[in-house]
């Protein structure tokens, strides 16, 4: 059981680094998703202002 500390350290570092990296990607993905949604809605509202016949106007007629 000599050197158990080295074995424990190696496996711990592997899992901490991988878990940290996956967490970083998930958080980045969530932030990008929110940003994308906000941009898409702004673009859609601008588009409907510029072409009312393609959105609300078309539905009313």
């Amino acid at each position, binding site marked *: 059981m000599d050197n158990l500390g080295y074995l424990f350290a190696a496996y711990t570092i592997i899992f901490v680094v991988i878990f940290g990296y996956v967490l970083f990607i998930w958080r980045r993905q969530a932030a990008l998703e929110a940003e994308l949604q906000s941009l898409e809605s702004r673009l859609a509202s601008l588009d409907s*202002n510029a072409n009312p016949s393609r959105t609300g106007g078309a539905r009313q007629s």
Partner: protein
Amino acid sequence: MNGRAIRIGLGVLVLALMLAALYMVFVVVPTEADQGIVQRIFYFHVPCAWVAFASFALVAVAGIFYLWLGDQVWDDMGYAAAEVGTIFCGLVLITGSIWAKPIWGAWWTWDSRLTTTLILFLLYCGYLMLRSMAGDSEQGARFGAVVGIVAAIDVPIVIVSVRLWRTIHPAVLVTRQGGHGLEDPRMVATLLVALAAFTALFIWILCLRFVTLRMRTRLRTLAGSLAMAELADQP
């Protein structure tokens, strides 16, 4: 089946394979006679190296396709693979160093395998720094592709370094005399399960990172369209 479902399914597969690999490493495989329990680092150290090499090969392939076709998808693929590869190459160096201390009596030695692996790690750190400094420019993507292709030349050098130069690093998978150095079939089985687990992990993380980069590219395009639309909207 959509992309999100595939990524979740792959994540579950990674978890199952990783648990199986840990069970094999800590329960099934016998303790190596010379090195003792610390030799078990080998079963995750080698798969980390495999993932790093596969990533860097993918960076080179993506770089070639980007330079050839100029499609942003290849640049995103190369960038994602370079990041994943650098992280796993860092893990190879760290776990190797932890393994070396009780066996060689030193954290680090300027052995050919270790030195060429460190060079590989630094080359891809350089790639990531270049990409970070160049921002989203097309020129940065082109330079990145060239650096990724040139840096991948070090991968075969790392692999054959134990045969080319005098080294204290063990040649376990293919020994200098030929054949492999794993005397027990359970050791081979454990290594294969760990390799399968890390291959699945590599594909999963690469997919996650690639999707993030694709989203960033789409965000850039949308921001451009929005700026144009706002400009056109002004009286």
